[in-house]
């Protein structure tokens, strides 16, 4: 079946729930209303003409910092050898959609992943926990407005080279080349060079004093 026929079939059956049909896209997609996901997916799987037996991929999507979230279902039929993409858009603040775990078991972990990384809640999922991140992680990493948490159980999270820190650098003057990341400190270093003292001695003096 061509994507047009699939769209026509869905249009006849569900009417208003079908919002958009992108026939010219690289992967033809059908945009549906979030509240009808379960019905449409059940129909797609069980209808003898369509029989989408497998869910290739379920991915969360963030359309931008101010835009909606989305879920993309890439469906495929092993018998009929046709494909279609379903997309759903969800409001950013209240991202809820019904789970399709009961239709395709593949969706089980993929939905957990989308929940973990995007914060999309799948209603009716039997076991909606974080899957890749630890359970008490804050925030949803793949959202575009994600800011990484500062500390996790007392451990510093954002990655920082120790030698990017000037204090560490001062203790190891042989790494002098790195100084140029710290523009403001350059005159300091030059001064210490003029005085015939390395930065190391200086720091020792400080600690002694």
């Amino acid at each position, binding site marked *: 079946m061509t994507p047009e026929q699939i769209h026509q079939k869905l249009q006849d059956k569900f009417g208003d729930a079908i919002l958009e049909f992108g026939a010219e*896209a*690289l*992967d033809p*997609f059908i945009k549906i209303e979030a509240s009808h996901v379960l019905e449409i997916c059940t129909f797609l799987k069980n209808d003898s003409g369509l029989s989408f*037996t*497998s*869910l*290739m*991929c379920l*991915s*969360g*999507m*963030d359309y931008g910092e101010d835009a909606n979230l989305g879920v*993309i279902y*890439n469906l495929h039929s*092993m018998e009929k*050898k046709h494909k279609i*993409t379903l997309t759903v858009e969800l409001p950013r603040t209240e991202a809820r959609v019904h789970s399709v775990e009961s239709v*395709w*078991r*593949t969706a*089980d*972990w*993929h939905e957990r*992943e989308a929940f973990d*990384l995007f914060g999309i809640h799948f209603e009716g999922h039997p076991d909606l926990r*974080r*899957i*890749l*991140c*630890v359970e008490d992680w804050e925030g949803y*990493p*793949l959202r575009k407005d994600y800011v990484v948490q500062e500390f996790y159980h007392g451990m510093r999270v954002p990655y920082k080279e120790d030698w990017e820190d000037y204090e560490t650098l001062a203790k190891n003057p042989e790494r002098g080349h790195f100084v140029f990341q710290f523009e403001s400190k350059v005159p300091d270093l030059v001064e210490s060079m003029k005085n015939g003292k390395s930065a190391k001695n200086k720091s020792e003096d400080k600690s002694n004093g």
Partner: protein
Amino acid sequence: MFGNLFKKKRYIFEDESTMVVDLDQSAGRYYEETMSKLEIESYQGDEMVVNMGPQHPSTHGVLRLELVLDGEVVKKVTPHIGYLHRNFEKHAESISYNEVVPYCDRIDYLASMNQDLAYVLAVEKLIGLNELPEKVEYARVITCELNRIASHLVAVGTFGLDVGAFTPFLWAFRDREKILDLLEWLSGARMLYNYIWVGGLARDLPEGWLQKVREFLDYFEPKMVEFNKLLTTNHIFIERTAEIGVMTPEVAVSYGCTGPVLRGSGVKWDLRKDEPFSYYDKFDFDVPVGEGKFGPVGSVLDRYLVRIDEMAESVKIIRQALDGIEPFTAQDVQAAIPKRLRPAAGAEAYVRSETPRGELGFLIRSDGSDVPFRVKSRSPCFSNICMIDDISRGGMIADLVLIIGSLDIVLGCIDR
């Protein structure tokens, strides 16, 4: 090639039929049924919760399984993953399209070429690059199939190790070493190649490389016969593996299992055949499926045999590709590499290809800039390990080790 080895030594279980766990029903989902079939009432005592992994030699990486055990029988398995999580997808959103390729290598480090090819195919679809020099396509097929053999050798070797056979493991690695040498000569690295680029290859084929591949194939085929004599046709091995971890085709399809795991259940589904990418439609090869020669279809042994047969098919494909590339050896492999990679804004494509572990798909969305807007990788191991609870219920804890081995997981691929 290897099929006739079995004919003489066919061996069917006759007398121990009571021990045959007939797991028709969704492959042993129902613990009570299995227990009654095992003719064991119940073990005296309480349930145990045992933590297996993440540092366990037979979980093939940092996979943690939370087992609920009754004696030695597994009642429930809860996999916990994420110990190797690097969030490749977030990384990919901050680097340009070409720079993602080295990261793709690290998704599944045992089959880097195939990972690269999957990603590169997706980007090529995004930018509408369909025509590539013949040499590039043939070289991609050759390298990918070589890597498939290398990956399957690790799979069958470590599976032998899980059963308790040490020699096959070393023999498999000896042959894999030859492939790694070939690919090192080609790309400079032994495992993480970064060789397949968008629109071409990183380097030209070295002089005499194709001849060396041919020599390797001539060397490899007798070695596989030896390997089969050592492990595949061993009665003790067959008896150990033929009836455990049975997965029915319905379960496999529903859980989205792909690759040898799906084919082991008797479903003839191979993207190289059913949805040919690159030049796979030009080659003549078979798709081996699990036949249940020694027990129910979809057992641990079937998955193993599919891998063994697939290696022979890969050898076939490489031979044809080596013949096919001959007239085009003078072509420039970097001729079609685009100067600037900027797919149209809003373009989105899901492209999948067959890696040794199954279907690897990349969903890429572009916003018209140099960096991808979103890259989602649908990794085969992620879906394959998902159903471990279903097929290991009712089995012994020692069988669980074999089941994990037969699924051939790579934790880098699961956690990404």
